[in-house]
């Protein structure tokens, strides 16, 4: 996106050419990939022509002028249906844009369409029986999970159907598909980006963020969407820094805490080796790497279950009473289970949340970022329910969420980037976690890693 922005501004390429090329690619490939629910071809071409005219006329343009992107289908888009990945909302057409959609439009970005996702964002595998299971583009022979819940965002970016996308992350829904699809995904600090006009899964755990090929592209998108929004009272009034300017490539003296216990120790050997190699790469460029343990992080699983379950059921209660048969049966089951979470569980989880948050804060008091795998496993095949780790078989769903949800629970910013590939060619992801509202340092570290490696430049054959 950063490159397209430069090329459009210098008239090296026209927004019309860029948008048409992406629409052609979607038309050619998405029947098999199932990454889009709705393609906005006509509106995108109209916007591209308007953008082109502005460039030709020499009018002032925004930081993403003429650059296309796509959105997970839970962002409200005025006049364009927003399904939440559900049949129940198949004909739901919002009257207004979500705040972040409006901000990206003001920056000049052009919407290509709305992306596939797990129904109501409730699941990490990336499956959707209503609109088709998005296909991970890294394995042509086997239908592998894209990861979720922002499955379409992961696939569309990895396959080059869009240069960038918006995802949302309640337990890892940006970072899990980023990890499984070999792209970059940023979950900002809770309160950094507005959730107004975004269908909720769990209000206190939902985070909005970009999914792109490079960290620089995520920095560009974050700069356009971050900042206080009166329509979302949880947003911070802290000023939004220039994230692109923070990408200096300098790692000298950066203090990196490598999370071994629970994280590296709980990952598949191939994932562990890739993240250890990444730590060595960072250290080789001047970062100071030590190991750190978060003693209470294993409580995030139970805590998230209580918080996400209770909040999700509160949102869905009426629909579950009246239209249960239209839900994905798997999602309906999980919502029903949540009826047995008590008020005591919910409040105790929020108390535990304070402890986990304080522990992550303490680890970051003497370090700039923490480093961990994004997921303990690489993309499983669709239908695979168990994966094998060191201690034996583990449930795929729990495994996918294990390393990401602690930082939804704590609210800290985390950026997932590719850090290796298996012998079979499947991507491996790692995440860098930073201090609250210090996305600039997280992005600087992640970008510097990408300057030292080429994992983010590799493309699947589709």
């Amino acid at each position, binding site marked *: 996106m950063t490159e397209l922005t430069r090329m459009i501004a210098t008239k090296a390429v026209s927004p019309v050419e860029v948008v048409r090329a992406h629409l052609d690619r979607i038309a050619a490939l998405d029947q098999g990939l199932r990454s889009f629910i709705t393609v906005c071809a006509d509106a995108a071409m109209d916007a591209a022509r308007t953008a082109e005219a502005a460039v030709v006329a020499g009018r002032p343009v925004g930081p993403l002028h003429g650059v296309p992107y796509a959105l997970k289908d839970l962002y409200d888009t005025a006049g364009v249906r927003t399904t939440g990945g559900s049949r129940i909302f198949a004909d739901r057409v919002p009257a207004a844009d979500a705040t972040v959609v409006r901000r990206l439009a003001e920056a000049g970005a052009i919407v290509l369409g709305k992306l596939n996702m797990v129904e109501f964002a409730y699941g990490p595998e990336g499956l959707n029986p209503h609109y088709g299971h998005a296909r991970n583009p890294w394995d042509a022979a086997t239908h592998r999970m894209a990861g979720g819940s922002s499955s379409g965002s992961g696939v569309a970016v990895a396959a080059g159907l869009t240069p960038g996308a918006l995802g949302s992350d309640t337990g890892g829904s940006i970072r899990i598909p980023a990890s499984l699809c070999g792209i970059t995904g940023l979950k900002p600090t809770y309160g950094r980006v507005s959730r107004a006009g975004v269908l909720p899964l769990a209000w206190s755990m939902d985070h909005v963020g970009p999914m792109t090929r490079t960290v620089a592209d995520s920095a560009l998108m974050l700069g356009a969407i971050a900042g206080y929004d009166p329509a979302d009272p949880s947003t*911070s009034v802290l000023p939004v820094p220039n994230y692109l300017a923070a990408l200096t490539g300098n790692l000298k003296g950066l203090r990196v805490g490598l999370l071994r216990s629970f994280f590296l120790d709980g990952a598949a050997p191939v994932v562990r080796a890739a993240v250890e190699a990444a730590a060595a790469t960072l250290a080789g460029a001047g970062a100071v790497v030590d190991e750190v343990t978060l003693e209470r992080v294993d409580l995030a*699983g*139970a805590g998230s279950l209580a918080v996400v379950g209770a909040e999700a059921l509160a949102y869905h209660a009426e629909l579950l*009473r009246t239209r249960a048969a239209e839900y994905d049966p798997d999602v309906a*089951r999980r919502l029903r*289970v949540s009826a*047995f979470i008590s008020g005591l*569980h919910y409040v105790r989880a929020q108390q535990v949340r*304070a402890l986990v948050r304080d522990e992550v804060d303490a680890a970051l008091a003497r370090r700039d970022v923490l480093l961990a795998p994004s997921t303990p496993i690489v993309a499983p095949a669709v239908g695979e329910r168990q994966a094998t780790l060191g201690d034996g078989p583990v449930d795929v769903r729990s495994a996918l969420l294990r390393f990401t949800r602690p930082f939804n629970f*704590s609210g800290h910013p985390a950026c997932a980037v590719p850090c290796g590939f298996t012998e079979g060619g499947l991507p491996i992801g790692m995440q860098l976690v930073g201090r609250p509202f210090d996305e600039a340092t997280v992005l600087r570290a992640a970008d510097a890693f990408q300057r030292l490696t080429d994992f983010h430049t590799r493309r699947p054959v589709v």
Partner: protein
Amino acid sequence: MTNDRIDLDTLRRGAQLAGFAWSDTELEEIRPQVEAALRMLRTLETVDVGGAEPTTHYRTV
């Protein structure tokens, strides 16, 4: 609901208290997941939370 095993009557009462009229078949279907969830949630009760006040999200400014 402190034992691992939850009987159907308990499930019925729980659903009813939450305002849902689910059939016995629907309740039987979720029984293993409810039992697993409650086992997991019980770990929260073992944590010494001291005087920690519940927080719903990160301190925002």
